[in-house]
């Protein structure tokens, strides 16, 4: 399997704080990589650097062997990289359906054709399916800002899938989501992973979720990589237990 994403020695500091301090890793085509680590160890910051939301202080990101550091988030998204956010990020005044159509529309046609083409960019059907899957049917026409925490979290995840991405970076998708829904979500991820050969990187503190979903797990601490390996290996790693898992 070749590497979809290669991250080399990424650094990000804020003033004197080294939030990410030289992180390198690869993500192989079709794998589900877990990313765990104590609060404040730099996971979200690493995502933001990879995705162009923050400019890294140093280092390089390659997508399919092409350097993409410095690309804007929207450009990366057009290349098939999508994401979810740790803090709730939806379009509060737009309805749930509009949120989802919005999430897919820039992947249909070009800017000019979107001006003259259909007003839903032909996405209503896809959006409705997504709504059905996440059990948001009765809320489809409600403004997204009126959803409960967990529902917004689910909507955020749903949006990440609308554009048919090949690489998805999920930042704590499980936080606040009901366990039975979570089981569905996991199945869905696995299905997309198998059928569409999409690749995932998942930040999560929910160990059952990470350990049962991921093929490899990377552990960060204080801005650096602490460990990387199969879930069962990582789980037994004393350093990981000490810094993160407890017991």
């Amino acid at each position, binding site marked *: 399997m070749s590497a979809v994403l290669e991250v080399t020695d990424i650094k990000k500091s804020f003033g004197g704080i080294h939030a990410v301090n030289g992180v390198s890793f690869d993500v192989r085509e079709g794998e589900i990589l877990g990313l765990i680590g104590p609060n404040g160890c730099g996971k979200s910051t690493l995502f933001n650097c990879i995705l162009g939301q923050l400019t890294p202080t140093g280092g390089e990101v390659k997508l399919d062997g092409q350097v993409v550091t410095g690309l*804007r988030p929207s*450009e990366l*998204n057009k290349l098939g990289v999508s994401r979810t956010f740790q803090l709730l990020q939806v379009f509060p005044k737009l309805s749930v359906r509009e949120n989802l159509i*919005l999430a897919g*529309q*820039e992947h249909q046609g070009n*800017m000019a054709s*979107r001006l003259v*083409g259909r*007003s839903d960019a032909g996405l209503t059907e896809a959006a409705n399916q997504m709504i059905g899957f996440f059990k948001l049917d009765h809320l489809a026409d409600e403004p997204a800002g009126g959803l409960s925490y967990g529902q917004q979290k689910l909507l955020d995840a749903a949006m990440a899938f609308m554009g048919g991405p090949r690489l998805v970076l999920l930042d704590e998708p499980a936080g606040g989501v009901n366990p039975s829904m979570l089981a569905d979500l996991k199945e869905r991820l696995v299905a997309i992973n198998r059928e569409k050969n999409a690749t995932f990187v998942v930040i999560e503190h929910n160990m059952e979720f990470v350990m049962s979903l991921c093929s490899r797990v990377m552990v960060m601490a204080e801005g650096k990589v602490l460990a990387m390996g199969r879930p069962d290996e990582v789980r037994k790693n004393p350093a990981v237990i000490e810094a993160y898992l407890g017991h």
Partner: protein
Amino acid sequence: MSGFAKPLKIALGLAVIAALIIVPMNFNRYGLFILSQWAVMSIAAMGLNLTLGYAGQVSLAQGAFVGIGAYAAAIMTTHGWPLPAAILVAIVLSFAIGWVLGYPALRVQHHYLAFVTLAFSTLAFLLFRNESWLTGGIYGISNIPRPHIFGIATNKPLPFYYVCLGSLAIVSLAVWWLIRSPWGRAFMALRENPLRAQSLGIDTRRYTLMAFAIGSALGGVAGALYAPLTQYIDPVPFNLSLSLDLLLMVIVGGAGFYFGPFLGAMIAVLLPEWLRFAEGYYLMLYAVAVMLLLIWSPTGILGILDRYLAERRTKAASALRAVAKSRLETVQ
């Protein structure tokens, strides 16, 4: 919307349009002038509504674009060019300048952006006033001709009112088309959550610049009509207070609502005229009226309607929720 609402809406729309065409036929010159002014200001406000109401980019420069359009039209038509050509130039010019003015919006937002545009608006005023070789300076440009449309002279108030109304109709249709296209949705995404928008592939830079440029271009159109309407322009009407007025129109009408600018322009243009009976107190009354309106509905006139519709919708939704089956029960 329930089934009967749509024909009802269409009928209402047609009635309003018919009224706008027929009723003014026996208006006096003053009434026609004010109504034409309403049409022109509606166009400018619609532009700002696009930039501010839909795309969320605060601009205090819309008045300056009206000025740019007005000067373009005044200079060209007094040199013998036809008005349509002048309008075209006004559009292109304001679009281009609006595009450039959009660049700061890529760096700063909200009140910071408001002040960049405020500064621009002051600079534009100074240019209008000081560059007399081009703009006639403080003396302004007089004897601006009104156009011949299809061979009909529009010197008289009624024909020129129809020119304004026709332009308003064209602009309204274009804006309607724009905001219900995916572009409109992308603009709203800029307003609601630019961060999330970026990560969904929405080229926030390009859309921001577009929102500025298109909104400004509409300001230019309004200006290009304003010049032949008053037939004399000087820099004073295009100072900051026009930008603030237009902002007021957008907010009072209801920012981000399609019909907001029409109502807002009505409040800002017609209300003071209605209040003129109060003589020296009319502006005071106007100020109080605007404040009361905003106290009553801070989201503007259409905010009230929106609240009403939302209530109806949520009532339906909560009825659905009330009859929904418990999962626990279904298992039992």
